[in-house]
Structure formats: structure tokens, C-alpha cells
């Protein structure tokens, strides 16, 4: 094969070189790189369909964060699929001699995954890494990899990148994206430790900060920093919550994403543009761990800030195209690096769904091999049948679940109540008048101008304060200027009212109003926002919720960052204001002693400094 080039990442740059003909040492139908949460299932699914499979893993076991990383519990995700069979076997064994915590015994899951892999003839190569990808044009042909025994080559019909960070896709020259638009940051990472207390074994972690997992220096620093803070580093170890181990893998929630043949974005979801050919459904809420929400996208803030829908779970159909790097053949991505945007990645990353993603990738790869077809041409009917047979693709389809209400039992969510968008005007009015207006606010957005006259009418109802304010919020989402006077009142009074739309992380009316006035480009609110930036002392005795806002600095940081972003948007809408406003902002944040931070989730001590992002915003 004379067209072969070896693609490698060298000092952060992707380079390729002609290699002429290559005598591969081995040849496989499918090579899976990364045998973590997704990759383990990808390898098993491909082998189950009759493929020869090589699994290359940098750790010493299968399962990744789900086993070695100690996150064996399930936070939402859809039930069903191959992993359920493994979990069932574990449940039967762990009754005798294994501590049950979270979803299943991590040690047993490592063991069972490995035994299944052996039974199915998968060649497992631990403590190994891929260092190059062979391509002929856009067709991936194999890998160059290193194990404890040395450097090897192996040919593949299909290569599955389950590294979590799209390391292989990036190495192969695929287009990737990463982080949020404003500063490139993903979600915070965690450093998990396993602990034993008086009567149980468990895990402990907090969010530890932000990390670019594609930067080697940052990775080392993150490991050192997150391992040397309380409770890992204690002045005196007294046996309480005794450490069993620091896990050998950081809990990275977000890295690179491939740009796929199809891309799953929050904006498309909000506009109800869904694939008709899902491989599986992911299911969760927009569980972004960042507290500096003001720096997230407007799509994200419309949902989380304006409508307070943090706790609304929803299912997301994932098509095959979201696993195929755009323009490439013989290469799939599985796991959290699939073709998502940063916003949607907050939802599509949970253990159940990542296992499903792996199963879908392994099955698609196997069908492409069996029918000798391109990955983009794998017949959907056959994929659908194979994934439906294991329960990976469930029949329930799209759904929304309100996790603030105990419920009626949907797939994986017996505890919570199914939610539907409201279509009837009286039902929306009733909800807007109550303390759980989130679904009504979004329902109004869906109805668009058809409901605008009603919203204006309700916003004028002075005798129903919640209806008035919530209607103004709904109008704000429609860019209707009629919302402005009420929103200004909410800003000026620093309205501390917090709706109960979600089970937690609802946004106060004051913050919501600042966000919407920024979107509306309201020049009249500018003096008030500038006052907020300088009024740190005014944010004392703050309303704390013990989790999102744990001290006065947290509360002020929310007001500060939302006000700052609103001012940026307003000056973009009114360039004539820009000079004077920027001068004042620079006076506040430009001084050397300016500092602002938020706590990281799960901790009252660890803080994330915001100064750098703020200065970037201003530049």
C-alpha cells in the first residue's frame, strides 16, 4: 500500500510523513484505543459481532473512570444495553465478599469486563499507547503503538478512538473543537479518592479546577495541585475517612470533541432539530459543573439562567454521524469526545450513556466490516436491530423529566416525573404565576410571537407579582422590549427571589434580569451594572444555598460576572457607549489588587480565580 502516511502529534503539532509500504505486524478488524467506559463496551460489542479486536489501554485494566476512576455509580443516563448484562453478573457476585457502593463493585467490573474480553478473543494490551496513525488519503489503515515490550504496528479495518479526549482523531488530523467560546475552558475536573469510614467504603471528590487535558504540562500540574489539598493532604490523619487510594486517573469531564459528519449541539436541540436515526439516547440534565455561568453561551444561559431548567432532564438522540470524524473513513470516536459542542457535553457524558456510545461504535464498526461498506453507509436498519436487541437503543424515544418532582417512573427515572411542554395559554399562565415557572417560560419561548400579547398582558398584572416577573422573563427571551422596565426593577432591587423550577441551582431573579437586559442591549441599565461592579461591600449576608453560593464572595462573583457580560453585550449593541463603559470597567478590574473567585463545587475551601477570564473578556 504505497499511499500510506504516518500521522503523529509532535510537540502539539500534527505532522505526517510518507512511509511507503508498511508490513504491519498484526491485522485486526477493529482496534479500540482506550478501554475505558466507552472503549470497553466498544471492544466487547465488536467482538460479539464476530470481529477480531485489539484493545489498547494506557492503564492496567478495563473500565476507565467507571472502574479505576471510582465513579462506578450511575448519575442518570438511559438504562439498557450490553453493560446491563455485565452489571447483573456483578450484582450476583458482589453479595459475598465485596463492598457494595455506588453502582457496582469496581474491582468486580474490571474483572468481569476482562473475562468477557478473553472469552470473546479480544487481545488486551495494557499500559500501552498509540503514537501514530496510518492513513491512505482520508482512510485510516492502522496504528503505531507502544507497549512495555516496545513499539508495534497493527492494521485495522476500523479504528475506534475511545481515549476520551479524541487523542487518536487529533493525531490523525481530524478537525476537533474544545471548550467554551469565551475562553476555551471545558468543565472542571475532579481528583477522586477511595475512602473507608466506620461502616462503609466509598469515594470522595470535589471539583478541582480547570484543565486542558491535551496539554502535558497542565496535566502534571493538575495532578499535583489536586492531590495536595484537603482532604487529601491533612495536617493529621486520624483514621477518619481513611484513604484507600488516590485513583490513578483524573476525573476529566471534558476534552476535545470531534467535528463529525453530524454534530449534536444544544442550539439544534433547543430548536428541536433531532436525528431520525438514533443509535442510542443520552439522558441527563445540563450538568455543567462550572459556577462561572455568565461566561457560558447564550443557549446555555437561556436554559439555565432565564428558565432555571438545570434540573430538567432530557434525552438526546445520537446519530452514527456524530461518531464519524468529518470526511474520514475507517475511524470512529466513542465516548465523551463524540461530535458534541461544549454546551451539550454537559448532558451527554454520563456512565450509562458512554457505555452505550461504546456499544454503538463497536456495533457500527462490526457491521461495516461484515458488509464491507463505508462507515457512513452502514445500513441503519441493521444497526437499529442490533442495538435494539440489547436495549442500547430503547423504544421510548425523546423525553423530558422534571427531577424536582417525585414521579411516575420513566426509563431509568422511576423517582421523577415526566415533563411536557405546555401548549395551552391558561396552563402557561397558571405556571408563570407559581414558583415553578421554568417549563412555562420555555414553553412560551417555543410558542414564540403567538403568546407575546398574553405575556405583555400578564406582565402588566401588578396584583400578581410572580406572574408579572416571570412573564417579563419570558418576554425577555423573545427579545421583547416590554420586558425591560420590570427587569430593571429586578436588577435595582437585587431581587433575591429564587424560583423552584429545578431541584437545585435555580437562578435568582436579580441575576436572570441582568442576563436578559444584557441580551436586550438595554442602555438604561448601564449605570446600575457599573455600580454593581464596584459594590463588593453591598453583597454581605448573602442568601446562601450551601452548594452553588456558599459565601458572600460567591454571591458577589455571580452579580459581578453577569453584570460584566451584560455590559459587554450592551456596548456591542450600542458602540457609542463602549469607550466610557470600558474605561470604567478597566479602572475596576485593571488595578493590580483586583481579585474575584468562586468556590468549586463540593468544596468551601477551593476557589477558582476569575481574573484571567475577565481580562480575556475585556480584550
Amino acid at each position, binding site marked *: 500500500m504505497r499511499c500510506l502516511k504516518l500521522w*503523529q*502529534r*509532535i*510537540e*502539539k*503539532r500534527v505532522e505526517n510523513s510518507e512511509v511507503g509500504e508498511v508490513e504491519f505486524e498484526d491485522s485486526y478488524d477493529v482496534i479500540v484505543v482506550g478501554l475505558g467506559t466507552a472503549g470497553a463496551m466498544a471492544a466487547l460489542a465488536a467482538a460479539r459481532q464476530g470481529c477480531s479486536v485489539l484493545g489498547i489501554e494506557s492503564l*492496567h485494566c478495563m473500565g476507565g473512570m467507571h472502574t*479505576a476512576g471510582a465513579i462506578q455509580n450511575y448519575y442518570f443516563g438511559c438504562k439498557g444495553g450490553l453493560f446491563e448484562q455485565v452489571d447483573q453478573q456483578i450484582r450476583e*457476585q458482589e453479595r*459475598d*465478599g*465485596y*463492598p457494595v457502593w455506588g453502582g457496582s463493585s469496581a*474491582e*468486580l467490573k*474490571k*474483572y468481569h469486563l*476482562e*473475562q468477557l474480553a*478473553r472469552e470473546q478473543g479480544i487481545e*488486551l494490551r*495494557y499500559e500501552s*499507547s498509540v*503514537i501514530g496513525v496510518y492513513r491512505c488519503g482520508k482512510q485510516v489503515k492502522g496504528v503505531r503503538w*507502544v507497549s*512495555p*515490550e*516496545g*513499539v508495534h504496528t497493527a492494521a485495522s479495518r476500523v479504528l475506534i478512538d475511545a481515549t476520551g479526549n479524541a487523542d487518536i482523531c487529533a*493525531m490523525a488530523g481530524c478537525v476537533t473543537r474544545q471548550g467554551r467560546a469565551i475562553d476555551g475552558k471545558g468543565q472542571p475536573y475532579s481528583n477522586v*479518592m*477511595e475512602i*473507608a469510614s*466506620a461502616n*462503609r*467504603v466509598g469515594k470522595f471528590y470535589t471539583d478541582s479546577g480547570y484543565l486542558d*487535558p*491535551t*496539554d*502535558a*504540562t497542565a*496535566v*502534571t500540574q493538575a*495532578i*499535583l*495541585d489536586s492531590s*495536595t489539598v484537603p482532604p*487529601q*493532604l491533612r*495536617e*493529621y*490523619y*486520624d483514621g477518619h475517612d*481513611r*484513604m*484507600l*487510594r488516590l485513583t*490513578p*486517573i*483524573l476525573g476529566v469531564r471534558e476534552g476535545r470533541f470531534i467535528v463529525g459528519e453530524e454534530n449534536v449541539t444544544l442550539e439544534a436541540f433547543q430548536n428541536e432539530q433531532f436525528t431520525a436515526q438514533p443509535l442510542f439516547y443520552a439522558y441527563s440534565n445540563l450538568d455543567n459543573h462550572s459556577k462561572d455561568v455568565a461566561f457560558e453561551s447564550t443557549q446555555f444561559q437561556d436554559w439555565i439562567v432565564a428558565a432555571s431548567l438545570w434540573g430538567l432532564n432530557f434525552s438526546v438522540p445520537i446519530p452514527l454521524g456524530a461518531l464519524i470524524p468529518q470526511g474520514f473513513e475507517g475511524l470512529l470516536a466513542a465516548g465523551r469526545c463524540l461530535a458534541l459542542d461544549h454546551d451539550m457535553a454537559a448532558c451527554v457524558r454520563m456512565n450509562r450513556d458512554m457505555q452505550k456510545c461504546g456499544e454503538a461504535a463497536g456495533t457500527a464498526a462490526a457491521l461495516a466490516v461484515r458488509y464491507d461498506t463505508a462507515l457512513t453507509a452502514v445500513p441503519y436498519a441493521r444497526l437499529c436491530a442490533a442495538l435494539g436487541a440489547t436495549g442500547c437503543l430503547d423504544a421510548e424515544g425523546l423525553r423530558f423529566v422534571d427531577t424536582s418532582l417525585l414521579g411516575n417512573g420513566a426509563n431509568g427515572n422511576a423517582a421523577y416525573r415526566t415533563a411536557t411542554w405546555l401548549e395551552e395559554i391558561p396552563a402557561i399562565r397558571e405556571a408563570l404565576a407559581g414558583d415553578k415557572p421554568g417549563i412555562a417560560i420555555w414553553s412560551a419561548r417555543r410558542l414564540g410571537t403567538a403568546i407575546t400579547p398574553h405575556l405583555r398582558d400578564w406582565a402588566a398584572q401588578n396584583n400578581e407579582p410572580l406572574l408579572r416577573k416571570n412573564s417579563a422573563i419570558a418576554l425577555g427571551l423573545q427579545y421583547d422590549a416590554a420586558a425591560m422596565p420590570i427587569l430593571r426593577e429586578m436588577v435595582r432591587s437585587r431581587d433575591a427571589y429564587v424560583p423552584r423550577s429545578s431541584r437545585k441551582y435555580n437562578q435568582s431573579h436579580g441575576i436572570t434580569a441582568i442576563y436578559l437586559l444584557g441580551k436586550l442591549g438595554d442602555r438604561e441599565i448601564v449605570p446600575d451594572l457599573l455600580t454593581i461592579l464596584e459594590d463588593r461591600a453591598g453583597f454581605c449576608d448573602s442568601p446562601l444555598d450551601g452548594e452553588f453560593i456558599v459565601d458572600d464572595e460567591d454571591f458577589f462573583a455571580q452579580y459581578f460576572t453577569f453584570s460584566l457580560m451584560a455590559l459587554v453585550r450592551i456596548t456591542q449593541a450600542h458602540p457609542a457607549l463602549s469607550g466610557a463603559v470600558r474605561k470604567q470597567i478597566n479602572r475596576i478590574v485593571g488595578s493590580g489588587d483586583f481579585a474575584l473567585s468562586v468556590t468549586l463545587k463540593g468544596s468551601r475551601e477551593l476557589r477558582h480565580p476569575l481574573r484571567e477570564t475577565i481580562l480575556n473578556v475585556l480584550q
Partner: protein
Amino acid sequence: MTTYTPLLIYGATAAGIGLLMKHRCGALLVERTAQVGHEFVAAFHPGSCWQQNLQSEPARQLHAEMMRRNLLTAEGRVHLPPVAVLLMNLIKQEELNLHLMTRIVAVEPHASGHEVTVHSADGLQKIIAGRIVDTTSDCESCPAYPPLPIYRKLNAMLFCNQVDAEVPVLEEGAGEIVQGRFPGELIFKLDLEKDDDWVSARRKMHRFWQNRPASLVSWTLAAIADRFEVHVEKGPHCVAPAWRWLPSCAYENVVAAFDSGYGVEQGGEVLETVAAH
């Protein structure tokens, strides 16, 4: 950009960190995993001979810190996991030059010593090293080199929800129980064959556990070690000119290994004068 270091240390083992601390700016340490001191800590291997005299001041300080923070008793009972935290804290405070999650891919001769190719999240990179000291248990920098270990074990942390549970006694040949620092902190050690890989070792551990003796019935298998406990002959061994294998796992305990790494070159170029293995 190719970087140069007079001394490249492979393995963030206790000996490797000791050696790095001795050389500081004159050395660079690279480690394949995210762990430090792993040949003891991640292997759940508390070690022995805690009474022996330590030669270096940094090792004495590390020992004292372990005592002060209640990780070590005078009898040599150790609470191992936080020892890795202490080592990481030392690396940070001393601003030592270390890259985790970075593996050596290849070593080639070079006019200045060795041209070493490493792989990390940044991709491939060349390092010119005057000398290499590999402190890993298997001499990972040279796959063809290492002799078979003397013995290997796979260890596991046990857990019992009865705080006052008695320490079980095992019959001869049924493995070994080691008491950690705190009540209920027990480590079970299972002997392995020299060529057991992770798959076969894990299978042996679970099969043993599922057929465990009566004395262990009230205990659960909480966590299996992420590293094998490996015993090899003490180094330094000569891999090639200016390339030594100083297996940290060969020392009695984590502080002794740190001490030996720090002091291995005291009194001259000890590493350079050891005969070829």
C-alpha cells in the same frame, strides 16, 4: 524543540524523586502514569525495616513528617495512601522538574549521551539526556533488559464494617495479611508467578477471594492494588554506558528508597562505576 538534560530519571518512584531532589535543576524526571511512589503506595506495599538509619536529611524529614502526620508508628505500621500525597507536596514545594503521564518510547545513542523519545499529551518529543537512570520496577526504558524479578505479589486493601474485627490469621501458603496504621486497615498479599500479567493476576485474586478461608469471611475485598509488588536485586545495574537501572522497589520501604535515591551518588560517580549486569 529538543530539550537537553544532564540526567533523565524514569519513574516517579521514591528513589526517582530522591534522585531528582538531589540533582534539582540538573535533572528531569518523567513518569508514565499519574502516580508517584507507586512501587510502594499504589502497590499497597508498606515495606519493612523502618528502624534503619537514614543517611540523608531529606529522607529524615520525610520520615519525621510521616510520624508527625500520624502515617507511621514507631512499630512500623503505615497508612500508605497519603504518602503519595506527601511526595507530591514535596515535589511542588521544592519545584522539582517532573512530567507525569509521559512515557519513554525509544532511546537511541547520541553524541551527548542518549536521544530519548517520549510521548505525552503534547505528543512525541525528543530529549537529549547525558545520562539515564531508570527507577521503575521493570526497567521500562529498556524492555529487553530486565532480569526476571525475585518475586511478585498482587495486594489488596480489605475492609470490614465491624470496627473491632479481629485480624484474620491465614494458613501457610494462603497469602499474607499485613496490618496498616489504623484498626481495620488490612492488606492481603497474594503471591504471583513471575510471568503473571494483569489479567491472570486479577483472576487469581478474585478466585482466591471467592473461595477464601473462613477467617476472611467477614471481610470484603475493597480495592486491588494498581501496581504489582515487585522484588528485584538492588541496583544500580548497568543497562548501557550512561544508562543505569536503579529499581526503587528493591529497597525496604518508601523512605529507604527515597533515601537511597538521594544518596546513591554520594562519594563520587557511583552510578557510573558499577559493572555491567
